[in-house]
């Protein structure tokens, strides 16, 4: 097995407690890693470093590169690659040692709540890079985003924040088997229920009309995100709680990061100052309310165990949340980036049929 690392000094954060990969491991390649072929080599490009696999290790990885999604064990993958499990484990362990491959098998083996949360937050952080690195953000930070997209982003964010009155309310109403957890959901909901107002105020300060914003139909992608949360809140309280790790990007929100972001946006998009101030105000409220401690963490500690079925439901919900956030940002660019898009969007009005 041969692999070279282009920048050995740049070590990504490895898992705090990690055993070497084995035949039963379920490898999940982190979302930040891009795989590509270069002649006979296979290149794994992480944000700070690059790994070049040569010869037999490249040949073993290439056929299974797109299946490193924790659905198959190393043994099953090795069968598809035509190598032994030990050989494949050794190859993947180069990436696992640097935290670029996560072994999810442990999540399905009744881990302690603390260990499960460690793995959960690790994957949430990785999955959240799929939308935090979206083209939407790089354009926004470069100052090149057109006004319709900036204001459209504000409107869709308003719809999403306002939807607390759908999915968070449902999370309380449908949590019927644990009154303590229901109280946690209720407390969180009550704290969030009127935050849509912050964005309405901000958008109004940008010159938009309040009633038009409220009446505007959310984009299909925004509605999909809201519906996804409503369905989980209605059908599976634990899975619903599992979405919040992705919402928080797997880590705490640093208020200094929000300040830096807002300062930059204000300097680039002066006409959207009202919206930027709304983002600042909303972030300050959330930090003040200590929303960084998610209900899931408290719930798992209270239960004291995480069954394989629990793990599957929580991780699927978190994965789905990341998928829907990707759609959310793509949807904003796709619609508001189109020439002549109305901002805000207009609702269908059947009065057209009466005249």
């Amino acid at each position, binding site marked *: 097995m041969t692999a070279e690392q282009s920048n050995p000094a740049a070590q990504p954060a490895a898992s705090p407690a990690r055993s070497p990969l084995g035949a039963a491991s379920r490898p999940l390649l982190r979302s930040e890693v891009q795989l590509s072929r270069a002649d006979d080599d296979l290149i794994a490009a992480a944000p700070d470093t690059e790994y070049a696999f040569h010869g037999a290790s490249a040949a073993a990885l290439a056929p299974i590169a797109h299946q490193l999604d924790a659905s198959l064990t190393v043994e099953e993958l090795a069968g598809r690659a035509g190598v032994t499990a030990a050989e494949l484990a050794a190859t993947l362990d180069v990436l696992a040692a640097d935290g670029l491959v996560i072994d999810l098998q442990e999540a399905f083996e009744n881990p302690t709540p603390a260990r499960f949360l460690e793995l959960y937050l690790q994957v949430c952080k990785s999955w959240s890079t799929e939308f935090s690195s979206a083209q939407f953000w790089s354009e926004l930070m470069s100052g090149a985003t057109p006004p319709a997209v900036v204001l459209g982003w504000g409107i869709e964010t308003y719809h999403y924040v306002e939807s607390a009155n759908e999915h968070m309310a449902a999370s309380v109403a449908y949590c019927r088997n644990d009154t303590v957890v229901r109280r946690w959901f209720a407390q969180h909901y009550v704290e969030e229920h009127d935050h849509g107002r912050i964005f309405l105020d901000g958008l109004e300060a940008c010159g938009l009309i309040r009633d038009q914003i409220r009446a505007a139909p959310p984009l299909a992608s925004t509605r*999909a995100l809201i519906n*996804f949360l409503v369905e989980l809140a209605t059908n599976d309280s634990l899975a619903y709680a599992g979405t919040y790790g992705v919402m928080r990007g797997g880590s705490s929100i640093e208020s200094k990061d929000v300040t830096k972001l807002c300062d930059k946006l204000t300097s680039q998009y002066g006409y959207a100052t009202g919206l930027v101030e709304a983002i600042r105000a909303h972030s300050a409220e959330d930090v003040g309310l200590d929303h960084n401690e998610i209900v899931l963490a408290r719930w798992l500690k209270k239960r004291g165990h995480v069954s394989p079925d629990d793990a599957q439901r929580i991780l699927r919900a978190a994965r789905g949340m990341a998928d829907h956030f990707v*759609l959310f940002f793509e949807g904003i660019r796709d619609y508001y980036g189109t*020439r002549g898009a109305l901002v805000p969007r207009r609702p269908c009005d059947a*009065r057209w049929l009466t005249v």
Partner: protein
Amino acid sequence: MSDMSVTAPAPGPDLVVPLLHWDAVVIVADESVTVELADSELQVDGLPPAQAARLLSLFDGAQTLDVAARAAEVPAQAAAALADKLVEHGAAVRLRDADADISTATFAASCRTLYRGLRERLASHPMWAGLNRGELPKSVFMGWLLENYHFIDGVNDRLALATAACPDMKIRPLFAKHYSEEWDHFSYFMTALSVMGMSEAQVLATRPLAGTRAVLEHMRSSARRDPLQYAACSGFLESTGEDRSAAARVFERFTRHYASDKPEAIKALADHLHLDGVYQHNSVVENICSTIERLSVARASAALQAAVLLVETMEMWSSDILRAYSGRETPPRAGFGPIRPR
């Protein structure tokens, strides 16, 4: 294009409330503003573009003409002339009977007209256009087939809920009958996938795209809100099989481009379409409207919105399939991998 010079001194009545069509696209250029509709466009001259755009944004069915003109700082006569021109060209209406009910026959006929435009819009999506021309890789075709399996199986998510949640005892039996005729149609797509080389176990292990779930969850949401909203969505879906010869041409192209050695895969899809035709599900809106005595503007508006949002969701779904499957060697998405190919 028609030129519109906003000079005619024809102020409207004090209580005129202009409403620009929800589908109108307003293009603001350096020197002018253009209002684009599905089949025509109008150029607005004689007003500074920023003011014209502001005025058009206020033709929202809530502000009177006078209020809109003042807010946009446009002379009342010029605002009235613009409203008149828009009405004349079918881009806006003047509202007088805002609270009137709508006849259910008018609503059903309007849905039929609306669906035609929406079908054309959806068919022009790059995924559909690309598959029809055979320009997309086979992985996209397989992705489309797999996601459609999940969508068709999703009748158990949507129509079963529409039936269970329906409070109207005249409508519920219609949904129940429709469901009983559709609940197992997933088998046609399972057959097609099997012919194309995917085992049943592989299909069942896959995780549908977020876009696929989004279509189903939009319909579930509509079903919970109002059976008419669900019917307006269902009516659009059923209308897509209306033109049998067009559908046959699509299947013929799919066979040629992606399944020339396995035509039985596409035959399974054609058999499914044929069965839907036998059941005459395309009249779902008319059937449900026939049970409703009074239809308020608000209820009809919400139902139209649900249908339009369904089509927007299906456009997003098409983009999702295109983006998710363009770079993959094989479509199955079974684990926790990213939604977009690496």
